[in-house]
């Protein structure tokens, strides 16, 4: 016979703990980390690289679990999040807390031992920033929550870069800026069509505190800043012809969507079932994914060209 405490949360299994780690966010973190590693153009042993990526991913998962523990009261009143493991009653809040703390310590410690302590420090700082600055302090206080809190999501390429090179380069800062400026319009588009959710949960998103027209204007302004940064990267060491062409196409469509969202009014957007807001939200995910994919590609091309140049020089000088 099982005790009562054992049957209180009968459906908690490993997949629920995996859900606590926000796997979709983790996937994006792992992807941008790998791009940061490759873009640094420094070589480390593949085993060290794979192990580092695993622990950086676990660090992101730790932050996700701790965030779900802290925000479980908000999650339970929002339709978008009420199926998460804690509000659905599958995982006890304290289990999520211990799980997140354990993973945080493990991931930071292991990254320090495997890669270097600067990378581990930035990973630890990122987790701390996401929990204390974003989740605990800003999220329920100010509509600037995701503007400042977005920095947490922008650190992974820097962590990847530092893991391979041991220092923070200009390229990693540009990638940081790209994610940092991308975050507000992405989440504000989501908040426009999840308005009722945020209103009910009393989260001061920009559309709740300043209204939807102001949010639409801010989306447009941040999109313009994002276009400047993402096209500007074309002319840095990260960029190249493939990146530049992709950036032009992606930014063209992003700008079109941002303008359409700006010129929507309440009746029009409800009549269209928030079509353009949803399109902007979904497209912004592909936008970031493709741009980072292009940075990855350009880094590989650079490396290949250097290798080919070395080969030619070797042939000239040594026959």
């Amino acid at each position, binding site marked *: 016979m*099982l005790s009562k405490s054992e*049957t209180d949360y*009968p459906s908690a299994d*490993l997949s629920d703990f995996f859900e606590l780690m926000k796997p979709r966010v983790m996937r994006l973190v792992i992807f941008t980390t790998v791009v940061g590693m490759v873009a640094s153009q420094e070589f480390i*042993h593949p*085993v*060290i690289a794979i*192990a580092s990526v695993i622990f950086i991913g676990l660090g992101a998962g730790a932050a996700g679990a701790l965030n779900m523990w802290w925000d479980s009261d908000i999650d339970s009143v929002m339709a978008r999040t009420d199926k998460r493991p804690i509000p659905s009653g599958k995982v006890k809040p304290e289990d999520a807390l211990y799980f997140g703390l354990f993973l945080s310590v493990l991931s930071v410690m292991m990254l320090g031992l495997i890669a270097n302590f600067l990378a581990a420090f930035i990973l630890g700082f990122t987790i701390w920033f996401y929990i204390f600055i974003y989740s605990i302090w800003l999220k329920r206080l100010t509509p600037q929550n995701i503007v400042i809190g977005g920095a947490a999501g922008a650190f992974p390429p820097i962590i990847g870069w530092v893991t391979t090179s041991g220092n923070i380069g200009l390229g990693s800062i540009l990638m940081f800026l790209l994610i940092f400026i991308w975050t507000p319009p992405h989440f504000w588009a989501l908040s426009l069509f999840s308005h009722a959710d945020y209103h009910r949960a009393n989260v001061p998103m920009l559309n709740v505190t300043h209204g939807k027209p102001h949010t639409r204007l801010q989306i447009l302004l941040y999109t313009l800043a994002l276009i400047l940064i993402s096209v500007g990267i074309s002319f840095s060491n990260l960029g190249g012809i493939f990146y530049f062409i992709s950036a032009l196409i992606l930014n063209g469509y992003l700008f079109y969507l941002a303008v359409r969202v700006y010129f929507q009014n309440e009746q029009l957007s409800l009549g269209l079932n928030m079509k353009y807001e949803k399109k902007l939200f979904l497209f912004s995910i592909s936008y970031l994914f493709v741009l980072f994919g292009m940075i990855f590609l350009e880094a590989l091309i650079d490396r290949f060209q250097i290798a080919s140049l070395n080969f030619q020089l070797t042939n000239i000088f040594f026959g």
Partner: protein
Amino acid sequence: MKNNDFEIRKRRSSTNIALGLILAIFVILIFSVTIVKLSNGDKMQAYDHVLRPEMLTDE
């Protein structure tokens, strides 16, 4: 009630197997990293406030 207990025990058993696999992967990962680090000439002993001849570099 018995069926419920059986279901929980069954689920717990598969969770234990999955946890065992995760631990095995962890051990393999740490072992591989150790082999790579030692092959690359990383120090095998940490500094313990006493200078040892093997810690001196060729310079």
